[in-house]
């Protein structure tokens, strides 16, 4: 089956990416929070999401993200976080896929910052529904500020990874 070979190679790569992002997620879980504001964190695992968006098909990046979030929530035993991860992540993923279509890898840091901002907006929308009050919107400026720093960081990391690894472009 010669035509099946690249599929399996791809599947292995995606599994590897998912595993790496899960490891990053678990490591970050052990670190103490930088600032005691709910929702603020570095999001190391998103380095892989950014990398996948730029080097794989949109559905493949979405797959890596979904599996990571689902298994990650099992690892952390934190079901509430799953809602926030998903609402933020989906919005972020859509935005970043769109940006990666209209620009190239050189724009990965701004794209990542915009992605982080979309992630924060998704989180707050979810929080409004979960908490049943609009009071949480007052958190948005802090989340966006922390998010844009975290986004610049993850974007830079992803850029470094892309520069070092020559991925098989389909």
């Amino acid at each position, binding site marked *: 089956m010669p035509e099946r070979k690249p599929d399996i190679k791809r599947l292995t790569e995606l599994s590897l990416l998912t595993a790496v992002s899960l490891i990053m997620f678990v490591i970050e879980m052990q670190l103490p929070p930088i600032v005691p*504001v709910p929702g603020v964190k570095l999001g190391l695992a998103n380095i892989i999401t950014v990398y996948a968006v730029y080097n794989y098909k949109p559905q493949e990046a979405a797959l890596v993200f979904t599996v990571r979030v689902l298994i990650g929530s099992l690892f952390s035993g934190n079901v*509430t976080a799953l809602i926030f991860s998903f609402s933020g992540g989906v919005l972020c993923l859509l935005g970043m896929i769109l940006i990666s279509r209209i620009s190239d890898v050189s*724009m990965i840091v*701004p794209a990542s910052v915009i992605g982080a901002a979309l992630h924060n907006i998704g989180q707050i929308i979810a*929080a409004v529904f979960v908490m049943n*009050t609009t009071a949480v919107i*007052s958190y*948005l400026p802090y989340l966006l*500020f922390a998010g844009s720093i975290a986004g610049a960081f993850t974007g830079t990391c992803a850029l470094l990874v892309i520069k070092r690894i020559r991925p098989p472009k389909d």
Partner: protein
Amino acid sequence: MKKKILIIISAAIFLVSGALSVYLYNKKPDGRTVEIISDGKVLYELDIENESDREITVEFDGRKNIIKIENSDVYVSDAECYDHTCMKMGRLSQSGVPIVCLPNKLIIRYKEGGGELDART
């Protein structure tokens, strides 16, 4: 051109949110009335200056948060949840930032002037 737009948007997000955060963080709260909101309902409205030191227990879904009022200040002293972020957030007066416990749907904040009545209905 697209590149410029992307850079401008991301820089704008950073600068505007940064400026807004600094402004909100340093802003004096509108009043000294503190609201304790659980699952979208305002449970307590406390005039914090004239409040005697006491403990308030708020329960949601069987999980308790112990809120302490001490020297005209409010903080969460104990929480039955997995991350205890609300406890780490410290005292409300340190900044105007509301204390939030996401798993137990609890918010403690300074009441804003007007427009907040619909949150109660």
